[in-house]
């Protein structure tokens, strides 16, 4: 059984999505348990795989028994083992947490929603596990197409925002496909390991440079790296809370993983950092991304949209960290994939709870929420502290690695940008905490002048418990950072990078 984990983690959710589609016609109540079962099996396989990788090293799984250069192979090493666990666990927790809000927001579309949800997770897991460059494109489009559908099921402005995302996302995926085409012309192979084996003698070729840059631009479009970020804020803000708390933590992080995989495995760090002289301008772009993300977030008077701009800044953290070209920076970038997925999930689940109870997420809706929803807001404080980077939470440690990497590389502008964005995050979150803690709750519908304390009106337990698990995970991951780095991430980075 454990031999088949790499196949199971893609096949089971894929079949579950099909079954949910059918079950939605029979009885809507069947959809949720099937989705939980499918993603549960996927999460179990992912965790099992990571444990096996820790034991045995890299696992190669040949689909259908065909040998790698001809057939498609799944490679699981420490890097994607870790990302697989994060993706599957985040998706499962969010699925459970958002059950009530899905039932509230679109009661007649439960079947299609869960089918798209599980299919999207299939695509994301497939992107992470595959070792074939073209296969990655197909799974990328599966994840994107379902993502457009999920994001469009939301407020009035959601379809237009999703359509704009579709235009940009298609350009991004097509660029990636074009880059893969260049690689195929040069090497005659689509297997990532095989390409990496053939490429070294061709590093001087202009076509390799073209392939690399085209792939990078495509991936940056998909992850909303700063000048290419315009689609993200609206698409994530106007989506339903269940969809945005799935997509916001995962899609950008999985695309960062793809970028790191391209750098580390396909093109090798030797080519990306030493032969090409592009790391300096890219880190500068990341600096601009971080600063602009922070400034744009300051201008928002709307919690959910503010969070989307914070995501853009965080993408800058990870791209910059990966391109610093040293071991500490790369460690920080990979660790930040884990941490940022958890932090973003935590904050978006809080938004989901607030929307569930208050029906709004503008700053005016947040007044007096500490009295009305104390448990949700405590989790919000933990998530906010983690994004700011306060020590016991995990956000501090990845930022620490990124800043040390910046100092080691001598790139002080990146360090200053990281510190600047942390300070801006302090302002952003304490502004919200102030509104929610000190300003009295005002109901738009009641016009009474009595100032009685608002009774506690919390979100249901099925939403609170996953939120608290995530909030606790932020602290636990922070405490065990050393173990994660020493046992997993250290082996994920090739020894060539010092």
């Amino acid at each position, binding site marked *: 059984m454990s031999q088949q984990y790499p196949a199971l983690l893609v096949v089971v959710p894929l079949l579950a999505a099909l079954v949910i589609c059918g079950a939605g016609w029979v009885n809507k109540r069947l959809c949720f348990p099937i989705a939980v079962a499918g993603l549960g099996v996927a999460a179990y396989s992912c965790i099992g795989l990571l444990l096996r990788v820790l034991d045995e090293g890299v696992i190669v799984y040949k689909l259908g028994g065909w040998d790698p250069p001809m057939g498609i192979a799944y490679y699981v090493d420490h890097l994607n083992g870790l990302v697989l666990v994060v993706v599957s666990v985040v998706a499962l927790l969010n699925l459970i947490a958002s059950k009530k809000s899905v039932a509230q927001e679109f009661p007649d579309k439960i079947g299609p929603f869960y089918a798209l949800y599980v299919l999207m997770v299939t695509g994301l897991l497939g992107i992470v596990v595959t070792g074939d460059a073209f296969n990655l494109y197909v799974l990328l489009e599966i994840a994107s197409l379902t993502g457009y559908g999920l994001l469009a099921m939301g407020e009035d402005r959601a*379809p237009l925002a999703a*359509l704009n995302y579709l235009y940009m996302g*298609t350009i991004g995926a097509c660029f990636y496909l074009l880059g893969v*085409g260049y690689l195929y012309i040069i090497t005659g192979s689509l297997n990532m390991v095989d390409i990496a084996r053939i490429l070294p003698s061709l590093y001087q070729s202009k076509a390799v440079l073209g392939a690399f840059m085209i792939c990078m631009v495509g991936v940056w479009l998909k992850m909303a790296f700063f000048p290419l970020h315009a689609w993200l804020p609206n698409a994530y803000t106007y989506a339903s809370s269940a969809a945005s708390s799935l997509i916001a933590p995962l899609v950008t992080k999985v695309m960062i993983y793809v970028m790191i995989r391209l750098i580390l495995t396909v093109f090798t760090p030797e080519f990306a950092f030493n032969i090409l002289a592009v790391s300096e301008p890219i880190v500068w772009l990341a600096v601009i991304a971080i600063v602009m993300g922070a400034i744009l977030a300051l201008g928002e008077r709307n919690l959910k949209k503010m969070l989307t701009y914070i995501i853009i800044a965080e993408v800058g953290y990870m791209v910059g960290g990966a391109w610093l070209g040293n071991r500490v920076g790369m460690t920080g970038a990979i660790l930040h994939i884990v941490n940022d997925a958890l932090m973003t999930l935590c904050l978006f689940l809080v938004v989901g709870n607030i929307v569930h109870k208050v029906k709004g997420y503008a700053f005016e809706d947040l007044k007096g929420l500490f009295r009305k929803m104390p448990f949700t807001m405590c989790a919000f404080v933990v998530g906010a502290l983690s994004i700011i980077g306060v020590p016991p939470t995990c956000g501090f440690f990845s930022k620490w690695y990124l800043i040390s990497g910046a100092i080691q590389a001598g790139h002080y502008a990146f360090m200053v940008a990281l510190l600047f964005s942390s300070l801006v995050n302090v302002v952003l979150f304490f502004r919200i905490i102030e509104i929610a803690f000190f300003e009295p709750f005002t109901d738009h519908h009641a016009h009474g002048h009595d100032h009685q304390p608002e009774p506690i009106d919390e979100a249901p337990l099925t939403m609170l418990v996953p939120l608290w698990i995530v909030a606790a995970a932020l602290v636990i991951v922070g405490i065990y950072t050393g173990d994660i780095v020493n046992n997993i991430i250290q082996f994920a980075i090739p020894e060539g990078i010092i």
Partner: protein
Amino acid sequence: MPELISTIVAKYNYWIYITLMMIGLYAMIAKNNLVKKIVGMSIFQTAIILFYVSIGAKRGATIPILEHGHGSSHITHAVDYINPLPHVLMLTAIVVAVATLGVALALAVKVYNQYNTLEEDEILTQMREK
């Protein structure tokens, strides 16, 4: 100048795909109508599909089907057959392109039902009026 023309002619398939791609990109960026943008997106995707199909071609080669391939022992030369792999890949990419087109048109219908127009500037003015 003749050298330039000969380099362009020798790699004409790449020039065609680049031209098509730029037409598609232009339509997606500059057009105001949402459906025209979708058409541009389709042109963009088709350009890349054509690029892939063209790289499988070989001069003087035939379709990659071995007659009496089973049991015969004579050697086949790869040079005699065009490369089928890019074509097979593009079958998948065409499916993806069709699915993308379907999702895009469905979203456009939803937008139209909401605003009664597909012109982006009119939609934006309607949004501002709200």
